């Protein structure tokens, strides 16, 4: 049976590229090295919700049609639109996004990617403060202090810790895996050790038991690689941390600013910040300034709560300030496997990472104004193209409502909620499984995606579908000009 090595996992922003797939009769039958999410995707992508035929809405019903007809209809909708939105892009290749941008420019639309509802706000703060960062290997080799803030990689980026941070082995820093096992031993009985080890080896997060007691045995000052978790709740990642700081919901900004003051050796005129006694914070601040190389990862728990984008402003400023004392970097935990790529391509072609409005014939950018969610909330758009995304199920209700009212084109392998509302639905191949391309890891390292099996008959990759729509639009426009 053929085994394909070094396959990149098209699931999360960790973009592990060491997956081995066994193929039998044109189907993936075995996945090696991947986490549970990875296995689920490679083994289960070809499930029953797959759309196999282009569809078009006629008299309120989605009916099957030819690809040619679907593309023609899609092109008509976009060519006629006065303010179309083109949204998605984080679960497809950079190559597809690139065509998407050309399409948006051609039809004078607004192109936006899913970062608008995840780390887009983080980008706004990067634009104010900057960002001291690095590639993930740098952390593996050098970091002796890892902080996860508002992020639970154990569940959302299962191999992040093992490949890049605490449990990875680098040139100057050893894995903290052993220490973690010892700690568990001290805390719980034999049975739990086994389940913990199972977790590490089998990576089945669902089997985790949940009652580890909180520990404040100040392991914070010990030598070697340390892990700090800061979150509103005790997540699974928090359980393995050397130090866990439970922050009052929506008070991250205050906590971050307190840290900023503390590392400048300022006295705080309060006893507690965000529900945490200042002495604890002083310990954590000490650990931060005394490490050799610190890394702060933040997730949506930080970006989407309380002060929102300004949480990130404070986090970036904190890490920047820490560089006066030691080496420290910060990185957003990007979710979708190629959301970073969508931002990257958009930036080099238009100057802006997301929420790009071409309606005036050149790129304009102002999230809040040109971001798709806001455009929909103000009911401004009059047509929509959705690629590899399901906004109807995760946008605010009012925005989703307006989206469904627009003539709606959906390109997706799945019959998701948005697809069900489509006026034109064009099924596509799974990028990274049935179609090749490039994706960018959360640290901006580009990694190729492989085509390991063929898509179902007649099904094209996003890139190709978009190219055909673009060509069709140009044809329509030529005709109009001639007329």
């Amino acid at each position, binding site marked *: 049976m053929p085994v394909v090595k070094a396959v990149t996992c098209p699931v999360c922003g960790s973009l592990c590229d060491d997956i081995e797939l066994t193929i039998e009769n044109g189907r993936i039958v075995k996945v090696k090295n991947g986490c549970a999410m990875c296995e689920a995707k490679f083994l289960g992508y070809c499930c029953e919700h797959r759309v196999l035929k282009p569809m078009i809405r006629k008299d309120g019903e989605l009916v099957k049609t030819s690809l040619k007809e679907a593309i023609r209809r899609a092109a008509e909708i976009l060519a006629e*639109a*006065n*303010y179309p939105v083109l949204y998605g892009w984080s679960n497809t290749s950079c190559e597809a996004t690139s065509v998407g941008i050309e399409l948006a420019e051609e*039809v*004078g*639309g607004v192109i936006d990617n899913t970062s608008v509802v995840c780390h887009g706000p983080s980008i*706004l703060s990067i*634009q*104010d403060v900057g960002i001291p960062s690095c590639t993930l290997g740098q952390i593996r080799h050098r970091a002796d202090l890892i902080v996860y803030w508002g992020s639970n990689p154990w569940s959302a980026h299962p191999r992040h810790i093992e490949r890049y941070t605490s449990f990875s082995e680098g040139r100057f820093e050893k894995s903290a895996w052993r220490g973690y096992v010892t700690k568990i031993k001290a805390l719980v009985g034999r049975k739990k050790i086994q389940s913990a080890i199972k977790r590490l080896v089998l990576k089945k997060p669902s089997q985790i038991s949940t009652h580890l007691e909180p520990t404040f045995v100040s392991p914070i000052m010990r030598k070697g690689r340390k892990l700090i978790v800061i979150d509103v709740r005790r997540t699974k990642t928090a359980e393995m941390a050397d130090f866990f700081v439970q922050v009052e919901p929506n008070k991250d*900004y*205050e906590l971050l*600013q*307190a840290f*900023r*003051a503390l590392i*400048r050796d*300022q006295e*705080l*005129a*309060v006893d507690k*910040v965000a529900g945490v006694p200042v002495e604890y914070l002083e310990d954590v601040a000490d650990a931060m300034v005394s490490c050799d190389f610190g890394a702060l990862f933040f997730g949506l728990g930080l970006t989407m709560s*309380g*002060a929102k984008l*300004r949480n990130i*402003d*404070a986090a970036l*400023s904190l890490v920047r*300030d820490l560089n006066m004392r030691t080496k420290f970097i910060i990185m957003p935990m990007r979710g979708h496997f190629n959301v970073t790529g969508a931002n990257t391509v958009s930036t080099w072609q238009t100057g802006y990472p997301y929420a790009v409005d*071409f*309606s*005036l*014939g050149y790129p304009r*950018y*102002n*999230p*809040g*104004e040109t971001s798709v969610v806001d*455009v929909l909330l*103000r*009911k*401004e758009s*009059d047509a929509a193209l959705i690629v590899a995304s399901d906004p109807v199920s995760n946008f605010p209700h009012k925005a989703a409502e307006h989206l469904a009212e627009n003539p709606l084109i959906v390109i997706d392998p799945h019959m998701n909620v948005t697809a069900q509302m489509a006026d034109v639905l064009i099924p596509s191949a799974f990028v990274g499984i049935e179609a090749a391309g490039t994706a960018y890891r959360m640290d901006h390292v580009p990694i190729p995606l492989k085509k390991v099996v063929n898509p179902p008959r007649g099904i094209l990759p996003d890139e190709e579908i978009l190219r055909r729509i673009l060509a069709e639009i140009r044809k329509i426009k030529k005709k109009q000009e001639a007329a």
Partner: protein
Amino acid sequence: MMVNLYPLKELKLPIVAECINPDIFQGKKPAEIEKLEVWEGNKQKKLGELFKAEIAETEDASENTVVVIHGDISRVKRIGAGMKNGEIIIKGDAGMHLGEEMKGGKIAVYGNVLGWAGSMMKGGTIEIHGNAGDYLGAPYRGSTEGMKGGKIIVHGNVGREAGAHMHKGIVKIYGCAGQFAGFRMHGGTIYVQKDCEARTGACMVEGTIVVSGRIESVMPSFTIEGVKKKVKIEEGEVVETPFYLFLGDLTENGRGKLYVAKDKNPHLSHYEKYL
């Protein structure tokens, strides 16, 4: 000269119309005004396709061009952007970027205004009788060039980050303010007559923020400096009630002043022990 503009239809698409500016209208006939270019969605249009322009000669022969817009123009962006002279009166709601980079003259809105009103303003006055959106007077993304002068008065409430990166000038809010009022402020004055959400003055370096109502909380990176009997907002406007004076933001080694009315904020009384 007075120019009246009447929308010809309900405006649904976003419209960019920086030509609605007294400096540009000045001396033009209605037909010329209607020929000015605007964008409606992704189509370039003439102003006359969206608005009807009428000129009413005013009795007073002053040179001031007054533009009066009748109706809801909340979809129309960049009205009065960069204007230097004259006056715009909007009898209805107005769209984003109203009076952006304005240098002089006056804009009055008898309705609500969306985000970025008075963004990067350098001079002149904007008076909003309804509510204002987010980023009132704040700079464009990535820029630190906030308000450098002029005056913004809002009689209703405002959204987030009013007066962010402000260097000079004054913002008076007679309603409530959203979070981060005066964010990264470097100078100037912000007055909030009613309540303030959290993180007021975060990362401010200099300047003055006065809150007469209740403030949700004061950042831990501010220190209390004392209690003042009254605070002067501007020439002729003094608020006579005791205020706590906080200094901050420590994280930026800031010396900004945050005045918070004592009576409305008993939850801050614990700070008094440091005095």
